[in-house]
């Protein structure tokens, strides 16, 4: 059970992530992603929306699976730019780990 943190999306803006709330969770990005891996990248974007910081940090390795092929960004019906969101999350996770927050 997780407490929703609606401020998290704003916190991420410093890392170039500012389109997460445009996403309406259709799953097109996960369907087209060549990784075909556990709702990636939609799952990460939903985690941003609800502010599930712990889940993002725990599953951070998945962020580096992304090939940055750009298919998700090209097909996103909401221009939520999923590829760029994943890159932004990488920057966020790296910054957290430098601060020693990443286990």
């Amino acid at each position: 059970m997780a407490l929703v943190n609606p401020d998290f999306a704003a916190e991420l803006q410093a890392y170039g992530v500012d389109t997460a709330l445009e996403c309406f969770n259709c799953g097109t990005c996960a369907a087209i992603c060549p990784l075909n891996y556990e709702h990636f990248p939609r799952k990460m974007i939903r985690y941003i929306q609800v502010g599930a910081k712990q889940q993002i940090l725990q599953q951070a390795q998945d962020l580096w699976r992304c090939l940055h092929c750009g298919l998700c960004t090209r097909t996103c019906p909401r221009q939520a730019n999923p590829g760029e969101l994943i890159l932004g999350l990488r920057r966020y996770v790296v910054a957290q780990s430098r601060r020693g927050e990443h286990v």
Partner: protein
Amino acid sequence: MVKKKKSLASPEPTPGGKVGVYVCHCGGNISDAVDVEQVCAQARRVPGVVVARDNMFMCSDPGQEMIIEDLKSGLVERVVVASCSPSLHETTFRNALVRAGGNPYVYEHANLREQVSWVHHGPEATAKATRLVAAAAAKAAQLKPLDPIRVEVRPRALVIGGGMAGLKAALELAERGQAVVLVEKSPFLGGQVAQLQELAPGGETAAAVIGELAGAVLQHPAITVYTCAQVEGFEGYIGNFKLKITRTSPESAEYSEKLERLSQSGCGPGEYVPFVGLMPAAIPESREEIDLEAGVIILATGMRPYQPRQGEYGYKDFPEVVTLPEFIRALAAAPAAGDTLVLHGRHIRGAALIHCVGSRQIPGIHEENPGGYLNEYCSRTCCAAILHAANLIKERHPQTKFFDFYRDIRTYGRGQEELYTRAAANQVLFFRFEAGEEPQILQNPDAKGSPLLVRVKDVLTFGEELEVPVDLVVLAVGQEPNNISDLVEKMKIPVGADRFLQEVHPKLRPVELSVAGILLAGTCQAPFGVGEACAAAGAAAVKAAAILSRGYVELDPFVAEVDLSKCTGTGACVEACLADGALAMVEMEVGGQKVQRARVNPVMCLGCGACVAVCPENAINIQGWTLKQFESMVDMIVSDEYLEQA
């Protein structure tokens, strides 16, 4: 009141003779199972039949022309068409008879599609088709030309309900030159729309919309408005409704809050007051009765917002849980500026919006409402209304966060999808729940935080359970029809399983009821938005104006007729009659003696035949369906004389 039109110009058909039989292939629908040519060949051997023809589509122009030519040339005088169901094309072919200069009632229809080719195959299909056609021909030979029943129309419309739809219908009728009486139960005009502020999706204000409409209604010389009024007496039929309207001082508590608001506003009669409407006239001090005659009635009795049960989403358990209409009222008193919305002095940092409250309830999953019913329908307007409210607030108070809990988002109409897109741009955060796993509203254990906690199993987060602290929960409640069971009973109007009034046909006759002369406008029929209610009201008004301006209506003459040479005045028919006022015993002179005899009011008669069955003298018959005609049909069905020898 009831006049018979002059007999149609055509010459009287020869009794018993000159029947034309026209058999349709229905493009294979019939001819794939029925040997149409054989049916024609055998039909020619039926007594009275002078010609039998077939056509691929008898309802097509060439098919109808064939019939018309035979009538015009004098070859046939009576017509049988053997085709699809009479409900589809009986009227088509009767009209063809009229176009040929004939009487439309010397026509008989045989159903070879629904009753034969769609349900039988092989030689039996052709055999059954042959007997049905022969029976129809035998009846056609017995038919007499009839005249439609012509009823004069009282030149006035009654509109019941003074909300958006009722006002619109009244105004449209008056602008078409018709006299209108508008009856409203409450002391106010404006209905449920007057309980709103800005209307989704366009943002027009209720004040402007109702103010303009009600103002025009009150100023129009052709419209009489009675508030605090109800229909107590109802009788009659299309063109001649007789009504008793009573005006009384309403139950004290019911409208006291609105009357209080009205007196505080300092507004006078006919001025719009938010969350009240307009009060055009003083509340009557004593009971008044008004007798009224009307040619048509428009029902615009409207809807009421669903009222949640105590404990439904924490309603009435927590003061922070409100319905959308309650929220809109509170919002009107809130400061318009400021980073955060402030309601009743409380800062609203986070607000939950919950969709489908009192709508789309599922048997076996949702609890029945106190009346023992479920609202299984979608109320259609709540998604747009609540997202519109969220957008307005978010754009005014950017620090107030919205959490939207939906089952499905149905922003289905013009300008509504944009509300949803705008809500995402306004950073409204969406959660999706399954039916039966509705969000729970709990007290927030964190005493320093917001008072409430919404717990949801969120489909969008892969079924994970999430909790959101909020200061306010707004329930997007659906629409329920107003309880008009008294009118339903008096007028005998059909009600759907969803308790809304039931139109004749959802596509082809969407504002008509099966009771002729009574029309539907607005949310008494189904959940509508304001624009849709107005469109329906406009359609009903035009339908009503068409009846009123024509001045008369014509009804099919398939009603009971008394043969006074046989009637002995037993009164059995009157006892058996199912329609109030259709049959009565009246005094008349026969052979210098005053006697009691049955008399039919053709306008009230349903043509059901209950009287025919009980008359010991066989003195009463349904025109166009007499016992003699039935007998000739049965004789022909059991006869083998016309069948070709195998």
